[in-house]
């Protein structure tokens, strides 16, 4: 099952990138995430590994994931190493007026789970899609608030100079 969500953020791609590539900030904007911890030696970048869990229905599902694409400031992709099969991707593209189009995709499933798996994937889809939508909305709020604070700080510095 593949689900996704997208949004326009009033900030340049680099500002969005700094938030989504920082493993310490995932819990502050990702909806439904109950655990996100670095498990390897590398905290970020290609090959970084995280243990993540997402609450879906009566279970926290997820497992160990590894970043398989890390192209600043455009793409981050991951795939599961253990746990539920999943592939995810952040896509950042520059839009008009200095804004950024942000897209979050997630494909998930359990190979070999048969009809039960097919039904479960479809029943879970609205829940997962809801998490993705809230995630991009919370990301937008976080990044735009950071931008406002940064601009205000720059203004104060200019005035004091």
């Amino acid at each position: 099952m593949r689900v996704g969500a997208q949004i326009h953020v009033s900030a340049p791609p680099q500002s969005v990138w700094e938030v989504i590539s920082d493993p310490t900030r995932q819990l502050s904007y990702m909806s439904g995430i109950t655990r996100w911890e670095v498990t390897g030696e590398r905290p970020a970048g290609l090959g970084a590994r995280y243990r993540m869990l997402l609450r879906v229905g009566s279970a926290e599902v997820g497992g160990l994931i590894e970043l398989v694409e890390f192209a600043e400031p455009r793409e981050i992709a991951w795939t599961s190493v253990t746990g539920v099969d999943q592939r995810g991707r952040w896509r950042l593209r520059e839009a008009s007026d200095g804004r950024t189009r942000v897209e979050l995709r997630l494909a998930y499933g359990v190979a070999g789970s048969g009809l039960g798996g097919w039904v479960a994937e479809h029943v879970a889809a609205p829940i997962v899609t809801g998490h993705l939508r809230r995630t991009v909305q919370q990301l937008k709020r976080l990044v735009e608030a950071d931008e406002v604070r940064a601009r205000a700080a720059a203004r104060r510095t200019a005035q004091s100079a």
Partner: protein
Amino acid sequence: MSTASAQARSNGRAPEPPAASADQRSMLTRVLRGVAEQAQRRIPRADLDERDPDFIRERLPLMWLIASIWFRGEVRGLGNIPDSGPVLLVGNHSGGNVTPDTIVFTLAFNAYFGVERAFYQLAHNLVLAMPALGSLRKFGTVAASPSNARKALESGAALLVYPGGDYEVHRPSWERGRVDFDRRKGFIRLALEQDVPIVPVVSIGGQETALFLSRGDRLARLLALDRMFRLKVLPISIAAPWGLNIGDMLGHVPLPAKITIETLPAIDLRAEFGPDPDLDEVYDHIIRLMQDTLDALGAERRLPIIG
């Protein structure tokens, strides 16, 4: 009194009707013993290698559907379980032979820690002897015995036990808010012997999946089920689709009661109770902790079944 029995007494012989009833009793005993032997033969030898992570992974979506939609399961505090190493999970047991709390917790544990972490559950011998439930062994279910429990913990696995067993799981529905291990303390001896932490797992809702009327423990004793099948109860309930359900041997369709499970912080027995803990003191402490949690979970529920 009949003339025949009076004649028999006058002849010094036993009256006929009691003799016939003794014959019937001995025949019933022989039949039950035969069934018991068959059942004992069917009990598979515990083999921890029968647990199959791929099989579990492929069944997780179906379990998720049952747990999420039918039971609206909610499992809290899984972070209290140590991330690695052997651990003894001690639960209160509800729901008759269908045990919805085990379904919800097994899903939650495997989803949270991954199917790669070895996780075993002890179950009554008869459960594993039933032909339709053979696949439980692939989930890591092994026959309840001290040696199987030791084997599982020695292998470094997490082990789920229900000390109350058949006695607790068939308690009447009006005792649903009570943790009742029947003073069984084997789990404490096991934790001390293996030097592993105990994590209490408290669940509510299972006893609302049918109307449990009686354990039928007197009936079980009368039929000698305890000696032959290790069954201390012959439960009587009203459950779908049977109506009056005696024994619950074929299971039942559980009502869609909301199952809530709370996992409590791990207890290191020697750190909390000294190098040689008193079993009664530890037992009372664990029961008190679990009962307080069950009371709190009960206070959250507004209506039976709905939760």
